[in-house]
């Protein structure tokens, strides 16, 4: 079993839809949670960074962490064609840990 599970999609939605992307994880020691966006043939870029349980909002993006369920989500409101990309969840075990654990990524297409 992978440490971080993510539905690879692909996911297609019409422009303006609300998108929900999710990851589950198995290790309760994960403390920091991130969402990265990766456009085709580019490196991942950080979208959201949260610590422990709770919600964090940034413009049209909301990241949600539920540590009790070992479940994290990214919501995109009023989705735009420019949001079409692969979205990767990632997490770190604890401060000072060495690496990010990534999900496989969900490929999203927003149709105009």
């Amino acid at each position, binding site marked *: 079993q992978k440490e971080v599970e*993510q539905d690879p999609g692909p996911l297609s939605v019409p422009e303006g839809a609300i998108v929900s992307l999710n990851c589950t994880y198995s290790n309760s020691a994960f403390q920091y949670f991130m969402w990265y966006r990766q456009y085709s043939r*580019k*490196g991942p870029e950080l979208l959201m960074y949260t610590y422990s349980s709770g919600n964090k909002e940034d413009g049209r993006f909301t990241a949600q962490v539920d540590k009790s369920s070992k479940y994290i989500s990214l919501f995109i409101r009023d989705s735009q064609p420019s949001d079409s990309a692969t979205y990767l969840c990632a997490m*770190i075990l604890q401060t000072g*840990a060495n*690496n990010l*654990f990534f999900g*496989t990524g969900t490929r999203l297409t927003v149709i105009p």
Partner: protein
Amino acid sequence: GAGVSQSPSNKVTEKGKDVELRCDPISGHTALYWYRQSLGQGLEFLIYFQGNSAPDKSGLPSDRFSAERTGGSVSTLTIQRTQQEDSAVYLCASSFAGPSETQYFGPGTRLLVL
């Protein structure tokens, strides 16, 4: 300012040959990471540098893989006697201090082993 750069952007090689991949981190970033991204596998951690030291090499898949960093800046990832299963995108990331800081990724090197 300049982001993380990697070279070459694409590399095609024959099975059994050695390849060297280069990463130039963001200036001032002391931490540097190498990841591998294979189709359907997500990003897989390979190695982490803090300065010129590599306190965590746990992700290197075999002894054919090695990496070094000089001057606290440029890093090279070397794959010896390449195999077809080494074909992947190799991504480099850097951060200001350590792993809890935001990691900024380069565009990657796409390696194809024939």
